């Protein structure tokens, strides 16, 4: 298997980690050359034995060259580390994809085998059932003959009795075959379910590997383009070159508007528009470059200096630079995809819109700098400390760059909802107690989602079940069996998933979303107990609504 191989929607990412490592080594060697030349030039200056006006000019010029070489040496070391780190991500992703393809092939083979076994078992059951039916008819006929003819019993050849006994034996034998065929079908269905689950897991592994490479490539592009990748004005065009290089699809261009005298953000803030303009004028200077220009500002400058390859931390730990570029790439991606929201972050629109003028004015420039450099993530983080719980939207989307979400959480982001937080068993103060919903998610891991628009949810239940419980799905149910399998509804719970409740959840509602976790399944057949008992794997996307669900939300029935 090699880079570029594709199977069942899983692709081994293209690229050559060995070549990248070799190239990184050459860049490092070049940095070494620069360092050595800088030393030579310093030695030249020290050995000239020359004093006078021309000597001063020569020393100044050569000294500036030495300084540039020093900076370039460290910058190249940082870039080499980025290339090397990308090679590492690519190598890991290629291995994961290859494993995913192998797993998928194996799962597909097992699916085909299980489906074949199910077909065989069903045919065997039909055959056995046919034999039972035929034997029952024969037995019925023999019994009738037996009842009608006493002579057969007393003086006859006992043919009717023998026929009846033979029919009984045949019924017993056919019933045995039927039981065996049914057991075989059950085993095959369990194997099929497991194989499908493994196929799904293989696809997820492949998708995760592809995501890792996509993000790493965006980080690589960010490292190549630095912070100049961000838009230069609020709501303005995002950096098309970054979007193109990072493989980010640009949103469709907005419809042309009537000509306005003022930019949109001045309308938004009314009387304070001039100040907003001023803020932007200050902030937009930042991407242009001078690291020194942001000294004295809290928080934002930390991020900026961390990106600076000359930062002592980056010199000591060059590998961290790549992670920061990936973060910047995530910010750039957000700015590309949500230019309007990015602009609002820059002028601290949330504070203005809510009349928090004091906070707005007091944090104006730091917020603007943060917004430009982190495309909203930094502003949201700092603002969250001032505004209780009202974490701004951009940060939640950008956060997924740093922290993985569940598949359901990723879907929420794609849908346009906000992911407020990713919760794992390692977190304190989890909103769902383990015995109150938390452990119904796979690995007790879920995402806290806040809806941004009305969302339609579905809940399956039995005829006498509860139509308004905590468990829901975004997808309409495809049938009881699918619901039972996807949501791991153990039969003993009594939910046969034959009825559906549909609700429309309003914007601003908190949902907890993740994959349904497995549930222990008691033995399917007393004879098979302990042998074929298995877990219902679940794995379908599950939504948990905590607390009361108003009846006004019900759309159906």
């Amino acid at each position: 298997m090699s880079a570029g191989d594709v199977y069942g929607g899983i692709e081994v990412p293209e690229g050559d980690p060995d070549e990248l490592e070799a190239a990184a080594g050459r860049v490092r060697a070049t940095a070494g050359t620069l360092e050595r030349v800088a030393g030579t030039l310093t030695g030249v200056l020290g050995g000239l034995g020359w004093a006078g006006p021309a000597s001063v000019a020569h020393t100044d010029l050569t000294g500036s060259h030495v300084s540039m070489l020093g900076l370039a040496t460290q910058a190249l070391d940082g870039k080499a580390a980025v290339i090397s780190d990308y090679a590492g991500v690519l190598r890991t992703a290629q291995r994961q994809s290859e494993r995913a393809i192998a797993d998928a092939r194996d799962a597909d083979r097992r699916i085909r085998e299980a489906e074949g076994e199910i077909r065989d078992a069903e045919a065997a059951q039909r055959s056995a059932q046919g034999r039972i039916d035929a034997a029952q008819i024969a037995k019925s006929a023999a019994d009738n003959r037996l009842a009608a003819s006493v002579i057969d019993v007393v003086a006859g050849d006992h043919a009717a009795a023998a026929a009846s006994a033979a029919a009984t034996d045949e019924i017993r034998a056919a019933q045995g075959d039927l039981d065996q065929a049914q057991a075989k079908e059950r085993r095959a269905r369990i194997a099929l379910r497991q194989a499908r689950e493994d196929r799904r897991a293989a696809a997820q592994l492949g998708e995760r590997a592809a995501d890792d490479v996509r993000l790493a490539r965006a980080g690589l592009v960010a490292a190549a383009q630095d912070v100049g990748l961000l838009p230069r004005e609020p709501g303005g065009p995002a950096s098309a070159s970054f979007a193109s290089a990072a493989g980010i699809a640009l949103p469709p261009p907005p419809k042309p508007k009537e000509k306005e005298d003022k930019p949109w953000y001045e309308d938004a803030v009314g009387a304070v528009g001039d100040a907003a303009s001023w803020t932007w004028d200050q902030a937009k200077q930042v991407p242009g470059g001078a690291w020194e220009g942001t000294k004295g500002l809290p928080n934002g400058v930390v991020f900026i200096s961390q990106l600076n390859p000359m930062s002592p931390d980056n010199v000591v730990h060059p590998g961290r630079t790549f992670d920061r570029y990936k973060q910047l790439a995530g910010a750039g991606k957000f700015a590309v995809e949500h230019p309007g929201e990015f602009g609002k972050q820059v002028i601290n629109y949330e504070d203005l819109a809510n009349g928090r003028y004091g906070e707005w004015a007091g944090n104006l420039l730091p917020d603007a700098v943060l917004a430009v450099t982190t495309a909203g993530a930094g502003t949201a983080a700092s603002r969250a400390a001032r505004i209780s719980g009202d974490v701004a939207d951009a940060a939640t989307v950008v956060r997924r760059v740093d922290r993985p979400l569940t598949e359901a959480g990723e879907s929420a982001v794609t849908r346009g909802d906000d992911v407020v937080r990713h919760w794992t068993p390692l977190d304190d103060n989890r909103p769902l107690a383990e015995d109150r919903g938390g452990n119904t998610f796979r690995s007790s891991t879920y995402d806290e989602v806040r809806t941004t628009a009305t969302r339609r949810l579905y809940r399956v239940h039995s005829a006498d079940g509860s139509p308004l419980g905590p468990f829901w799905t975004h997808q309409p149910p495809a049938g009881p069996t699918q619901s039972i399998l996807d949501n791991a509804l153990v039969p003993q719970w009594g939910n046969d998933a034959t009825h559906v409740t549909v609700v429309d959840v309003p914007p601003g509602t908190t949902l907890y979303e993740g994959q349904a976790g497995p549930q222990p399944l008691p033995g399917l057949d007393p004879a098979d107990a302990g042998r074929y008992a298995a877990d219902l794997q679940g794995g379908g996307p599950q939504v948990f609504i905590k607390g009361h669900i108003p009846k006004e939300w019900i759309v159906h029935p």
Partner: protein
Amino acid sequence: MPVGVRRVQPIRMPRIEVDVQALAAGAARQTASGGELTGAAGELHAAVAQAAAAVGAAHAGGAVGDWGGSWGRSLAALGQATAQTGANLGTAGDAYRRTDDSQMRR
């Protein structure tokens, strides 16, 4: 001091000390360093081109290649500037030497 009279400070030329042989040697090393930088620029350009080709995505590879191109050009320019500075140093050394020679002949 009467009104309208200014004290004129005498113009003092800084002291000049020159070791022309050291200047010539330094010029040679500085010029050679410029050549090394020019070579390093080519090597850097080639190395980044190698990385760009191995990225695995044309668009991202293009961005990396562009970066390598701009750094290569900058480094080449620095190499030229260094070599030129070395040449200037050599010219200065020659000038000092010619001056000394002409004074000695007098």
